[in-house]
C-alpha cells in the first residue's frame, strides 16, 4: 500500500451517471485484489475534503493499469467525472482485505447490486479462470442501468431488475430464494451492493446455512485504520471496515433489524 500520483488513461461513461476510470498502477504499490479499494483525493481544495474510497473493478498486470467503476453522486464524484486522459490522481492503495476465495468445493454465486458491480465483476472475472464454477448475479432498478461493457459476455450472468424490464423480475435476494432449495448447499455467496441488499443476502444465507461473504460500505475518514470512523458492529465488537474489512463473513456482522 502506497500513496502515488497515477495518470488517467480513460474516464468513460458506462450508463447514466456511471463511469469507468482507468489509470496507471505501479505494482510496487501492491497488486490490487478483488474487494480491495483505493482512496482518491480529487481536488487540492478544502471542499470536498476527505479522500473518497472506490473499489478496484479491474487490474491488468500486463499494462499495469487499474480501474474503478463509479457513480456520480455528490461533489467528489462530480469532479471525478470531469477529469480527462492525462490528468493525475492522488491515490492510496490497495487498501483493505479483498474477497479471499477460501478453500471450498462449492460453486460461487457472486451477487452485485448497483454500483457494487465493480468489485464483484473483478472478483467474478478473476475466479472465472479458476476451477470453481461461478455464476454472476447483477441486480439493478431497470434495464438502462446495465453498464455497457463486454464482461457479461464471458461470465455466466443473471440480471435482476426491480421493474422486470430485463432478466429476472425482482431483487437479487428474490432471485436467490427462487433457486431450488435443495441446491443451496452447493453454493458459496459473495456479495457487494447497498446495505439492504447485503442484509437480504445475509438473511438468506443464515436461514439456509450458506456461507456468505459481503463487502460493506461505511463513510471513511482515514481509510487506513487510524481513526476508528468506519467501524461496523460485529459479534466481536466494533471493527474497522477499512482495515479489517471491507470484506467480512456475513455471520460475523450484526445486522440492524
Amino acid at each position, binding site marked *: *500500500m*502506497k*500513496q502515488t500520483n497515477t495518470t488517467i488513461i480513460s474516464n468513460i461513461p458506462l450508463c447514466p451517471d456511471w463511469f469507468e476510470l482507468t489509470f496507471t498502477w505501479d505494482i510496487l504499490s501492491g497488486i490490487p485484489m478483488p474487494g480491495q479499494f483505493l482512496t482518491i*483525493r480529487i481536488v487540492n481544495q*478544502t*471542499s*470536498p*475534503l*476527505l*479522500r473518497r474510497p472506490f473499489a478496484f473493478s479491474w487490474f491488468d498486470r500486463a499494462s499495469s493499469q487499474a480501474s474503478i467503476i463509479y457513480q456520480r453522486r455528490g461533489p467528489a464524484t462530480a469532479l471525478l467525472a470531469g477529469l480527462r486522459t492525462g490528468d493525475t490522481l*492522488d491515490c*492510496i492503495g490497495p487498501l483493505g482485505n479483498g474477497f479471499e476465495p477460501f478453500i471450498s468445493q462449492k460453486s460461487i454465486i457472486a451477487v452485485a447490486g448497483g454500483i457494487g458491480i465493480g468489485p464483484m465483476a473483478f472478483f467474478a472475472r478473476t475466479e472465472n479462470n479458476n476451477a470453481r464454477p461461478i455464476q454472476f448475479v447483477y441486480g439493478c432498478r431497470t434495464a438502462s442501468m446495465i453498464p455497457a461493457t463486454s464482461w457479461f459476455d464471458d461470465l455466466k450472468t443473471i440480471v435482476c431488475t426491480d421493474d422486470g424490464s430485463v432478466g429476472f423480475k425482482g431483487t437479487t435476494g428474490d432471485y436467490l430464494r427462487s433457486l431450488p432449495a435443495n441446491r443451496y448447499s452447493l453454493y458459496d455467496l459473495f456479495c457487494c451492493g447497498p446495505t439492504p441488499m447485503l442484509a437480504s443476502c445475509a438473511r438468506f444465507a443464515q436461514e439456509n446455512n450458506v456461507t456468505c461473504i459481503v463487502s460493506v460500505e*461505511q*463513510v*471513511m*475518514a*482515514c*481509510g*487506513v*485504520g*487510524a*481513526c*476508528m*470512523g*468506519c*467501524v*461496523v*458492529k460485529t459479534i466481536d*465488537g*466494533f471493527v474497522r471496515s477499512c*482495515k479489517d474489512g471491507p470484506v467480512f463473513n456475513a455471520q460475523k456482522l450484526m445486522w440492524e433489524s
Partner: protein
Amino acid sequence: MNTPDLGVTIGIKKLPNPVGVASGTFGYGSEYESLMDLSILGALYTKAITLLPRGGNEIPRIIETPSGILNAIGLANVGVDVFVRDKLPFLRTLSSPIIANVAGSIEEEYIAVVEKLESFSGISGYEINISCPNVKHGGLSFGTDPAMVESLTGKLRAKTKLPLIIKLTPNVTDIAVIAKAAEAGGADAVSCINTLIGMVIDTKQKKIVLANKTGGLSGPAIRPIAVAMTYKVARSIQIPVIGIGGIMTADDALQFLLAGASAIQVGTGTFVDPSIPKQVHDGIMAYALCNKLTCIEDFHEFLP
C-alpha cells in the same frame, strides 16, 4: 547558513521540531508507517487512552461538512493495559517523542492512567483531553470549568515529572481563563484546540446523521477560530502553546506559530493527505531559513 534549531522545550523534554500529529487522527502510529517517514514527526500524540477499553460511540461516526469533518468516535480505545502491552512496543521503536493522550470520566481515571503509564518507558509526556464529560459533575465537560481544570492538572502534576500538556476545548466563553487554570495547576503547556461541537441533520431521512447526535468539528473550517484562540491564549500564559485546527499546509501552520504557538499538530489534514505533516515540516524549515529565524521564539516577534 546553518539549519535553524526549531526544537521545542516542553517541561523537561525537548521535541525535535514543532510538527506533531494530533490525537485520534494517527491511531497508535503503525497505520501510517508505510505512508510516511515517521521519524520526521516532532511528536506523535496517541489516540485517547482510558483506564478500561472503550468501544466508542455507535455508528455512523463521521460525516463531512463544508471544509471540515464532524466526528463522534468517542473514546474508542484499547484501554491502558492493552495499550502498554500491544501498542507501546511499536511506539518505542520510533525516534519521535510519544505523547500519551489521556482521557477519563472522573479525576481518578485520569490519575490511574497516568500512574500506570509512569511505570513504563517510551512515553515522553501526557496530553490531557479535558473535553470529556465529568460524570461526577453532571456530565459537564472538565475543560469548561477553570476550577475543575486546575484541580485535575494539579493532581496529575503530582504524579509525573514528564511534560504535562492540557488540551483545551474551544467550546467555552473565554479560553484564556481555562489556559490560566491549567498553568496555575502546573501544566507545562496547553494544546489549543480540540474540536467544536457540531451537528448535521439528514433532511431526507429526517434524522440526525451521527448516532451520538453531536460530533466534534475539525478541519480547515475551524482554522480561523483556532488561530484566534491560539493568539489569545499565547498572550495569557507563560507556558508554551501547541496550535491545532485545520492545518493543511505549511502556511496554515505558520499562522499558528506567528500567533504565538511553539508547536503545532496536524489532525484531519493527515486523513486528506498523509504527506501533509512532512510538507508542513519542510515548509516551516524553509520559512525559518528564508526569514533568518533561528528558533521557535523568533516566530513570536512579529505580531503585537
